[in-house]
């Protein structure tokens, strides 16, 4: 039987392409030498930036809770928790590293899928499990990006946005399965196991540490699923595209035509956007404006009487989602009923904190900053308005813009405008900055440089463990 035969869908009078098996064949056949040089470089740089976020994420209280809890998954450590000394089973490491990669929303996205915080932890943990080469890990990362980009585009008209898009159960199984050297059939089976319990996230949980599971669970379960398939557990071969399969379960709309578009020809990895600052992507241009304003004000924010943020409607919508709690989000954070997480989506909070502190790092998501009186005062002085032109530019060309205006007590007004976020595909920065910032306080300066150098030469190592050893504090 031809494993790539099309599937008859009688009630829709159309044929769906065998997407799962096509992805599986792409995954099985792709070799590092097939990657265009720039795509391989992007994957390597994606690892540098993502691991930088993971390192910073370990300094958050939620990460420390998770690290203590991992013993529930058992011993037998083979895989690295980035920024910590211990080794754990590979699925546990994938869970932890995916969680720390997003605990302050310092991640990346390809096309519209926040993929790095799933793919990088999965690839490194599975790679350590099988002692893969650096080139194999990079190839698996590219596969994850290419699959995630297409599945995300296929469900972008459904209810979910951005990091909420529930597509990672597909690429995580392919990433892990590639490193375990599964056959095409077993790769498809692994996706069936990975995606069967289709994980949609509860919108409410984005204001608590539960949110860090959004990529963590797919990463962890992708590795487990690949292993199940490797041992012969039979799964469906058409779970991605089937009308009663994964994507149709998690999304009201599935644009099937997007799923295989130019796979292996048009490399979506090239659309990688990497956040320079931790926060929801929609907030990043406003943060940049606030940091510039901090400099112009020489850090003297006491004279600010009002702040005005103009942005696309989606920025304002995301920013305002957690303002309806009773009592309010800050009281709930103080009482331990919510965490800092909701503030990662609040452009107003990020602007206030950046204006006061002149930086936006993990420190601005700790209670010391959250409850600083000046941050709270400025937060209360913010008003928002929609910039219709920015709205259109976002939806037509993924341009993320914002304007921040501060009115001072003396009547003067300072304004900064940013038309595209730093880290966008058309406005890159050196990911070493992010790695070094993330490693601060986790790895020594010397180890930071050694690890950075090793990651940038990942393609040349025979065993990825040579690199991951450098990501554990000496």
């Amino acid at each position: 039987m031809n494993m790539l035969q099309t599937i008859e869908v009688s009630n829709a009078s159309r044929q769906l392409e065998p997407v799962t098996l096509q992805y599986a064949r792409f995954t099985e056949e792709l070799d590092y030498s097939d990657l265009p040089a720039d795509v391989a470089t992007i994957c390597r740089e994606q690892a540098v930036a993502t691991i930088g976020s993971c390192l910073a994420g370990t300094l958050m209280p939620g990460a420390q809770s998770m690290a203590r809890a991992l013993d529930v998954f058992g011993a037998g450590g083979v895989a690295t928790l980035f920024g910590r000394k211990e080794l754990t089973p590979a699925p546990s490491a994938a869970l932890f590293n995916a969680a720390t990669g997003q605990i302050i929303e310092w991640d990346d996205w390809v096309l519209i899928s926040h993929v790095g915080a799933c793919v990088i932890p999965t690839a490194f943990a599975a790679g350590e499990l099988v002692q893969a080469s650096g080139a194999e890990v990079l190839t698996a990362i590219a596969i994850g990006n290419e699959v995630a980009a297409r599945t995300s585009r296929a469900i972008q008209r459904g209810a979910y946005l951005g990091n909420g898009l529930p597509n990672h159960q597909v690429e995580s199984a392919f990433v892990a399965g590639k490193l375990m050297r599964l056959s095409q059939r077993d790769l498809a089976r692994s996706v069936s196991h990975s995606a069967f319990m289709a994980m949609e996230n509860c919108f409410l949980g984005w204001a608590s540490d539960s949110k860090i599971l959004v990529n963590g669970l797919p990463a962890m379960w992708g590795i487990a699923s690949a292993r199940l398939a490797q041992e012969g557990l039979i799964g469906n071969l058409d779970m991605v595209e089937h009308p009663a399969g994964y994507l149709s379960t998690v999304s009201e709309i599935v644009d099937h035509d997007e799923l295989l578009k130019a796979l292996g020809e048009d490399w979506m990895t090239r659309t990688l956007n990497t956040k320079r600052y931790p926060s929801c992507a929609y907030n990043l241009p406003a943060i940049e404006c606030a940091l510039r304003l901090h400099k112009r004000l020489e850090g003297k924010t006491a004279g600010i009487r009002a702040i005005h943020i103009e942005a696309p409607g989606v920025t304002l919508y995301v920013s305002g989602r957690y303002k309806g709690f009773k009592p309010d989000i800050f009281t709930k954070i103080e009482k331990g009923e919510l965490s800092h997480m909701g503030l990662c989506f609040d452009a107003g909070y990020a602007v206030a904190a950046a204006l006061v502190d002149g930086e936006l790092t993990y420190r601005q998501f700790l209670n010391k900053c959250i409850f600083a009186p000046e941050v709270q005062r400025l937060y209360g002085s913010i008003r928002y308005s929609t910039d219709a032109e920015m709205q259109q530019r976002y939806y037509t060309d993924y341009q993320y813009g914002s304007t921040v205006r501060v009115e001072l007590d003396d009547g003067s007004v300072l304004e900064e405008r940013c038309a595209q976020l730093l880290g966008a595909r058309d406005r890159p920065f050196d990911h070493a900055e992010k790695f070094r910032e993330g490693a601060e306080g986790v790895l020594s300066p010397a180890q930071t440089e050694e690890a950075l150098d090793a990651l940038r030469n990942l393609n040349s190592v025979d065993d990825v463990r040579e690199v991951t050893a450098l990501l554990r504090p000496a």
Partner: protein
Amino acid sequence: MTDGAFQDGIRKLSDRWAVAGRGLINRRLEGALGMDFLFECPGAPAKILRFDRDSVRIEDPRPDVQPHAVFAMPLEDWKKVFSGEWSVMTVVLGGRAGFPKHHRRSIMQLSMLMQALFLLDES
């Protein structure tokens, strides 16, 4: 009083949509178009709103027609929504409005559009 504020808000939404709705809509948000949204507020007559690219049709609910999505919340929350300070999803996450699974795409997309519309400067 309740009736007036709620109806005024609906009228404001309709007026603004007619002027600026087309400029905000796009393919990813078109789930809000062509659907019947039931707007409910205690103490005020409910209304059905149907959005197209240039206008909003406002009708009384009919018992034999099921809306595609329901926006129901207290007046205090409607006021925040009509001011643009909050989106409907803000109220949903506050636990004071429903979010049934078969309504969620429409609710989210119209929620975002409404807030964007109310936060457009009236110049």
